[in-house]
């Protein structure tokens, strides 16, 4: 049918099928801003447009519904490259993180502000409730409207570090403009029309062998260009885990294996000229399976005679992590300090607790996406990944290629949270591109996201003992993890749970034991917090019980036992990543300050009873937490800096910004060090051809590792600038100084950086000023936080609501305060979702029952607690002048414990398993009655 409409005031006439979705019509017209965050479920709202000024989801509209109408997208907001006021306000409020949801949020703001000039909080929440964001926690959206009223961000956002100009100050995220304008940013924005589309045929069985596979009918279909099955797939074993080599994860994966180990495992992949053809062809593939008995629980997996999921040779694994695949054990580790048995005997009170946490999905709004092609005999992949350099290494191993034949370019990542830490799709895309020689594009559906990467289910036994005076004498953690069908991160996730909880305390007798099991459940891996949210929940709940037994206030027990600056964390020596770790003396620690700051507000909260029959009761809880800032002795980051001919700088970093602002952090640190403004530093990052090695963005390393590499490159640039200037001026380098604003020289004679660049780069100069910075370390600054909350529990229905939440964080220097704050809001809100309702549910056959946003809701703006505040304590750490400790992962570690303790305060019940669904609450209340 023919349709006519106005797209951003421009007349468009098209001949389209009437049932074509508007989302795809706009995509065909190269409108980037309509983002598909769910499987056309109407739930994510990231595909939103304004239709005659009203916010609607383009995935829920078909062609005739826009006929004769005005369609507005963010592409139409900026005129002549100038940003609209709303776009500017989004940048200033610091509410743009990964940017995937940003265009839809901007339209939500526009549709509201066009009607109501000064909207109320309720009206704002109402306008934004249909647009899901997994990064920001929504809180700063309200600031956008304050800015639109004429306020400046400085009036509600604090700045830090008085003596710095850029670090700790409110400056825009360097890529924010790209997102608010929906310029090309994500992989999907760069895919040419001739790319083949990939569809993966996935296993309907949880455990089976492919007896035969016949692709002949599919191959005959027009448009089908390549089919990969286990027959023509590389036979190499590897781990998808994006970890530094040698990886502490088993080499148990093949691109496509003859055996399938979970529902959704790869059986075949079809590359065709369209996704529809690829799907139709996949339907024609005839597969005969020999169905094997599946195991879905650790009990079943560890039973004598249990079906073996991986019958393989572990000698191929680079690190021996205690695997025993014949018993479905992926890995084991144990250790500790002192003598826990003795510590328990010495205790006046002891507590044994058992806790469990389910499989959870990251749900980045942009799913895994990659586009690959061959160029000049080299394999090039544009991808949405956290670890481009690891992916290059893994692919080289799979394809038996030298690494210099592969280029991985990380495009903007629409949220990662650990889901994109691995070579999760690049292995199959790379294989097909390399074997077929053709360009291939692959984008996972939301359903696929749910079945191929999750947070593992964990079961934790905690023992703790303390003296009457509250001194903890023993603490032990025993974790069993159900990591599902393959073992990426199987050791390190549960280990990290121990290495980021036990070192919170000065207790002298501590131990840990972790065992991970294969089952035929979905594959698990890294997820923001990396085992800590689960283990910290278990530890803090146990200590809560212990405090009760001792008749102490929880905060008093905690304050009595926490580590302080200068304390030597001996336990860390035991808790390496599959090898010996490094004991570390605390170079800084703001934990006590965080607790004390938080308590001041927390103690003013009064618990009330409400409801028609007094059934709604309030309670308060707090929790402490720590993370790392990268892994000392293992991780490394590099940066290269160039002064270009006008005296500005290019900074090349290997670090992979996931939307969390790593590029901005690197630019700010370099600008501070060189005395220039942030604008003077342009950042290119995470391209294996053009940027130096960086292990990638995981283990909370971005700000500290990549930032420190940038610092070293800038420091070195400063030295080069001084030396070159001294030579030009004919003075000793000790007489030359750098002056703010891009000037260098002596008191009497100064050169601008522009003049310096001209001279050094001229025929008679010393050459372009290029420096590099390599950062490795034996110590990494540990971030700490204390979180506080108040909840209302409805004793009749079991529904719980978080009324107040206050998070106080020691993140060293909040290098970019607005971004840091946004990270905390986002992480906390996400964890509130995990605590109450986010859990994958499986049927008897292992089929996931809620692999979509319809049945797996994530928090929206109306889930934000009424009081939701984030504060920082500014802590100086001597490692570098710009120590920004990590923040994103840390902030996921406390909400569950905090809420669990608050529910106990309100009702006396203990909820030891996530999610705290109402039936679980009611069950515990019933138990309590009886």
């Amino acid at each position, binding site marked *: *049918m023919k349709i006519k409409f106005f797209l951003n005031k421009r007349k468009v006439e098209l001949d389209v*099928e*009437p*049932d*074509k*979705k508007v989302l795809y019509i706009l995509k065909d017209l190269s409108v980037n801003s309509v983002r598909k965050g769910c*499987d*056309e*479920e*109407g*739930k994510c*709202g990231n595909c*939103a447009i304004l*239709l005659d000024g*009203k*916010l*609607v*989801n383009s*995935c*829920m*509209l*078909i062609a*005739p*519904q826009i006929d004769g109408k005005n369609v507005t997208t963010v592409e139409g907001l900026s005129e002549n490259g100038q940003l609209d006021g709303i776009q500017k306000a989004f940048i200033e409020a610091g509410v743009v993180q990964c940017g995937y949801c940003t265009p839809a949020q901007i339209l*939500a703001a526009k549709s509201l502000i066009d009607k109501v000039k000064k909207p109320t909080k309720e009206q704002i929440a*109402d*306008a934004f*409730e*249909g*647009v*899901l964001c997994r990064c920001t926690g929504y809180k700063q959206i309200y600031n956008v409207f304050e800015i639109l009223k004429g306020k400046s961000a400085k009036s509600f956002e604090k700045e830090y570090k008085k003596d710095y100009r850029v670090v700790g100050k409110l400056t825009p995220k360097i890529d924010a403009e790209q997102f608010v304008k929906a310029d090309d940013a994500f992989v999907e924005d760069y895919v040419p029309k001739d790319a083949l589309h990939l569809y993966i045929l996935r296993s309907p069985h949880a455990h089976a062998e492919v007896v035969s596979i016949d692709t002949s009918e599919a191959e005959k279909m027009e448009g089908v260009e390549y089919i990969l099955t286990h027959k023509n797939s590389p036979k190499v074993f590897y781990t998808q885990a994006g970890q530094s080599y040698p990886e502490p994860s088993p080499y148990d994966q093949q691109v496509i294996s003859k055996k399938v180990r979970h529902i959704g495992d790869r059986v075949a992949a079809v590359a065709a000229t369209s996704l529809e053809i690829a799907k139709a062809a996949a339907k024609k593939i005839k597969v005969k399976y020999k169905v094997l008995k599946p195991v879905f629980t650790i009990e079943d997996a560890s039973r004598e005679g249990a079906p073996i999921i991986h019958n393989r040779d572990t000698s191929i694994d680079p690190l021996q992590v205690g695997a025993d695949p014949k018993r479905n054990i992926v890995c084991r580790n144990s250790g500790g300090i002192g003598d826990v048995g003795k510590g328990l005997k010495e205790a006046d009170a002891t507590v044994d607790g058992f806790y469990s946490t389910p499989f959870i999905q990251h749900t980045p709004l942009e799913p895994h996406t990659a586009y690959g092609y061959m160029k000049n005999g080299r394999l090039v992949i544009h991808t949405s990944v956290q670890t481009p350099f690891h992916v290059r290494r893994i692919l080289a191993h799979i394809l038996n290629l030298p690494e210099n034949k592969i280029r991985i370019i990380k495009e903007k990542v629409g949220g990662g949270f650990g889901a994109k830490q691995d070579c999760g799709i690049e292995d199959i895309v790379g294989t097909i591109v390399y074997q077929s020689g053709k360009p291939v594009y692959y984008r996972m559906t939301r359903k696929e996201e749910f079945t191929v990467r999750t947070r593992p289910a964990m079961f934790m036994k905690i023992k703790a003992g303390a003296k009457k005076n509250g001194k903890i004498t023993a603490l032990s953690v025993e974790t069993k993890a159900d990591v599902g069908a393959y073992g990426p991160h199987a050791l390190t996730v549960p280990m990290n749970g121990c290495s980021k909880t036990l070192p919170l305390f000065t207790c002298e007798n501590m131990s840990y034991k972790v065992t991970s099991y294969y089952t035929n459940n979905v594959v698990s891996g890294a997820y923001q917090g990396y085992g800590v949210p689960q283990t910290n929940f278990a530890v803090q709940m146990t200590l809560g019980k212990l405090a009760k037994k001792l008749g102490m206030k929880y905060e008093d027990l905690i304050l009595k036992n926490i580590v302080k600056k200068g304390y030597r964390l001996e336990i860390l020596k035991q808790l390496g990543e599959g090898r010996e770790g490094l004991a570390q003396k605390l170079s800084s620690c703001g934990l006590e300050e965080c607790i004390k700051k938080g308590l001041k507000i927390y103690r003013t909260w009064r618990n009330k009873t409400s*409801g*028609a*029959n007094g*059934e709604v009761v309030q309670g308060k809880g707090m929790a402490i937490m720590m993370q790392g800032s990268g892994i000392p002795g293992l991780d490394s980051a590099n940066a290269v800096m160039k002064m270009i001919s006008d005296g500005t700088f290019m900074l090349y970093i290997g670090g992979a910004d996931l939307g969390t602002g790593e590029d901005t952090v690197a630019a700010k640190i370099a600008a501070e060090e060189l005395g220039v403004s942030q604008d003077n530093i342009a950042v290119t990052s995470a391209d294996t051809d053009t940027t130096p090695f960086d292990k990638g963005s995981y283990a909370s390393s971005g700000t500290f590792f990549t930032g420190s590499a940038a610092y070293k490159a800038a420091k070195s640039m400063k030295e080069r600038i001084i030396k070159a200037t001294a030579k030009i001026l004919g003075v000793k380098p000790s007489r030359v100084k750098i002056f703010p604003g891009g000037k260098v020289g002596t008191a009497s004679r100064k050169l601008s950086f522009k003049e310096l660049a001209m001279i050094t780069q001229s025929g008679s100069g010393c050459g372009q000023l290029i420096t590099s910075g390599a950062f490795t370390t034996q110590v990494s600054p540990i971030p700490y936080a204390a979180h506080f909350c108040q909840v209302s529990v*409805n004793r*009749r*229905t*079991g*529904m719980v609501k978080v009324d107040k939440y206050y998070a106080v964080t020691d993140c060293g220097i909040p290098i970019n305060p607005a971004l840091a704050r946004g990270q905390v809001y986002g992480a906390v809100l996400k964890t509130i*979702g995990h605590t*109450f*309702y986010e859990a994958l*549910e499986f049927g008897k056959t292992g089929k996931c*029952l*809620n692999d979509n*946003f*319809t*049945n797996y*809701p*994530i*928090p*929206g*703006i*109306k*889930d934000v607690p009424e009081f939701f505040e984030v504060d920082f304590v500014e802590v100086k750490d001597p490692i570098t002048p710009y120590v920004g400790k990590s923040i994103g992962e840390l902030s996921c570690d406390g909400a569950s414990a905090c809420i669990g303790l608050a529910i106990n305060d309100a009702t006396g019940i203990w909820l030891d398993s996530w999610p705290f*669904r*109402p*039936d679980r609450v*009611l069950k515990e209340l019933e138990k309590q009655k009886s």
Partner: protein
Amino acid sequence: MDYFVPKSLSEAEKLKKQSARAFYLAGGTILNWKGSPRAERLIDLKALKLEGIKKLKKGVEIGAMTTIQEIAESGDVPASLAGASALFTSRNVRNMATVGGNIAGKFFISNILPILVCYKAKVKYFSNGKKKTVSLDKWLSENEGIIVSVIIENPDRIVKFREEKVAASDFLSVFTSVGYLIAGGRIRDAEISLSGIHRRLFISKEAVKFLNGKKQREIFVSALNEIVQKEIKPIGDVKVSKEVKRRIVEEHIINILSEIKGETR
């Protein structure tokens, strides 16, 4: 797929009769959900002038193509209908979803239908060349023709509701609505309707008998709850079990009655 924009109700009806897999298209939030419409023919109702809210001498008439957002914002519809409409999942969907589609779509949850039941709304529809008006209840069981409008003849009925959901972006778990008239100090024409409890809308038969004829202060929550609980057979889902749904219904009844008592005190 064929697509038509009929200019009259008769033309629309004729087009529908020509194909077994033909559907009327209103806002499309159900038809276009998760993929393109699984239809052979779509008959778009947009040119039939079925939108708009009209105040009647007594009551209000809401055109079938009126969106839920328009209802939420309207000062002309009874407050409980506007209030419940504002709770509908999200503005993005409310801006397209229509009241006609809500009735005919019979989505597994609705926070509009229980309210309409409690207002004893009537449905004006077009079938076999004629416009007819029947009770909403009747239309839902017979499912006939093109819905033209919904009529609320008595907006003064007392209608109260409660909603519970797990997360703000989620579909509602339970929606409970109670409505009645007071005549001579006694309850008349009571209706209790729930969504989220069964696969389809639940309309009480027994509990309303209990309410009718009583004075407001004579209603004992426990007695009313007991009857409703006997009538319902909730279905649970992964988020909220059937036992919890029963508790939520109880909570809703308590809160609705206490709100009413609070207002009449």
